[in-house]
């Protein structure tokens, strides 16, 4: 269950500039810092947003050492929850654990931003006190990651953040099938294929699911053209 507080933050996140909304998420999540990084299975490529302080320090540390829950979450495509960094097995992130205690990071929780094989980045929550997230906070964090996934994807084509397109119809298999087809047709990453699909639907005022059905039925084929804007690299495709 998503808390009312988080539901409100997610609504703001869908329409506004996201930094304020993300900053406000720290309190309901019970953490001291939040960061959002772009990245792929091979690691973080760029910090997109950070609440500063402890989060900046932790992100720097992971970047310097090239290890930690963030890179692991990106590589495995699943959340990594570390409720007590001092009790992590030594061989997991040998250098990180010692350094993190200097920053007084007690707990870290990472949630991947992904849509199937499209890995866009990771949401990292940092807390100085040890202890797990509550079940409710975990649900809230996963919900935040889901909305951030779309926002990070939208960075490739800001025009697409149309208010009427609040969420993507992920529950329709045909959307993902069409994404795969477009990626093979145009030899582009899955992330870019999904953007192209949405751009086509948006600019022709079509429903996204119907557009996807047309692609899968081969009634529609998108024309190869340069990406509209700085599309995010999906290094998983390399």
């Amino acid at each position, binding site marked *: 269950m*998503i808390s009312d507080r988080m539901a409100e933050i997610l609504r703001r996140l869908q329409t506004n500039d996201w930094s304020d909304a993300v900053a406000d998420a720290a309190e309901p999540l019970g953490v001291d810092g939040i960061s959002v990084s772009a990245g792929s*299975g091979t690691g973080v490529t760029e910090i997109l947003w950070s609440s500063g302080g402890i989060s900046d320090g932790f992100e720097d540390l992971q970047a310097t050492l090239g290890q930690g*829950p963030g890179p*692991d*979450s990106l*590589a*495995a*495509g*699943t*959340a*990594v*929850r570390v409720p007590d960094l001092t009790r992590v097995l030594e061989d997991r992130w040998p250098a990180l654990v010692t350094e993190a205690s200097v920053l007084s990071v007690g707990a870290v929780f990472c*949630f991947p931003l*992904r*849509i*199937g*094989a*499209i890995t866009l980045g990771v949401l990292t929550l940092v807390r100085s006190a040890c202890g797990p*997230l509550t*079940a409710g906070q*975990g*649900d809230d964090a*996963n*919900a935040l990651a*889901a909305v951030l996934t779309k926002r990070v994807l939208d960075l490739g084509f800001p025009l697409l953040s149309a208010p009427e397109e609040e*969420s993507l119809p*992920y*529950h*329709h*298999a*045909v*959307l*993902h*099938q*069409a*994404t*795969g*087809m*477009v*990626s*093979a*047709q145009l030899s582009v990453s*899955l992330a870019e294929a999904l953007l192209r699909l949405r751009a086509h639907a948006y600019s022709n005022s079509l429903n996204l699911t119907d557009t996807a059905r047309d692609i*899968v039925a081969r009634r529609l084929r998108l024309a190869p053209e340069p990406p509209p804007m700085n599309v995010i690299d999906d290094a*998983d*495709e*390399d």
Partner: protein
Amino acid sequence: MTTRNEQLTEVFVEVADSLIDDFDVIDFLQNLSVRCVELLDVAAVGILLADESDRLHVLAASDEHTRLLELFALQHDQGPCVECYRDGRPRVGVTLTDPEAATRWPQFARSAQDTGFVATNALPLRLRGRVIGALSLFQRNPEPLAAQDLSLAQALADVATIAILQQRTLAHSEAERDQLQYALNSRIVIEQVKGILAERWQMAIDESFSIFRAYARAHSRKLSDLARAIADGTQDTDTIRAFSAHRPWPRA
């Protein structure tokens, strides 16, 4: 002709064998769906899982035809499954030809009938007082399922829940919500790969999936791992295509 008891024993052994091993959740649930069809003598079975916003997604089905997947997907906002998910109570013996069904779930009732189904049932995927999804059963005959079959169906739904929460992911996150998100994403990877293969091989989505699955089974590869490798570009898809060319046409 195997008796029902023999069938049940076989399924029980198969399920136990898989769960103690390193199994692929999508593959497991798909096999389980096929077993449900056989044991309960229904026409089609789907396993639906809710996302973080309480929307139901198809995780596996007894038959991967896109048309059927779409019918299950329709239940994200209408139909007995979404109602069962919301209040945790099973919906059994729902007659689709009933005018009431058409009024309550117009799109769902019509699509289900167009696909040849006349009755449907929805059972909750239960987890410690919560509901995480639903098991959807479709029938081509209007006979209600016997009480014994419904208990069996609920047991199979519970097995599905256990399997979803038993997945071993690389990072070993034990939080239930993380496991559910991981399962949902594993399903999406498979759909994306169906599209990639259908385009590369210039065939229908359903055909490309049959070949993909036959190859995975023959090589003891997990569906999700193979799909992931194809999406990442580390698995040569010509090999898969060539393999299928030397075999009898696989059935969907």
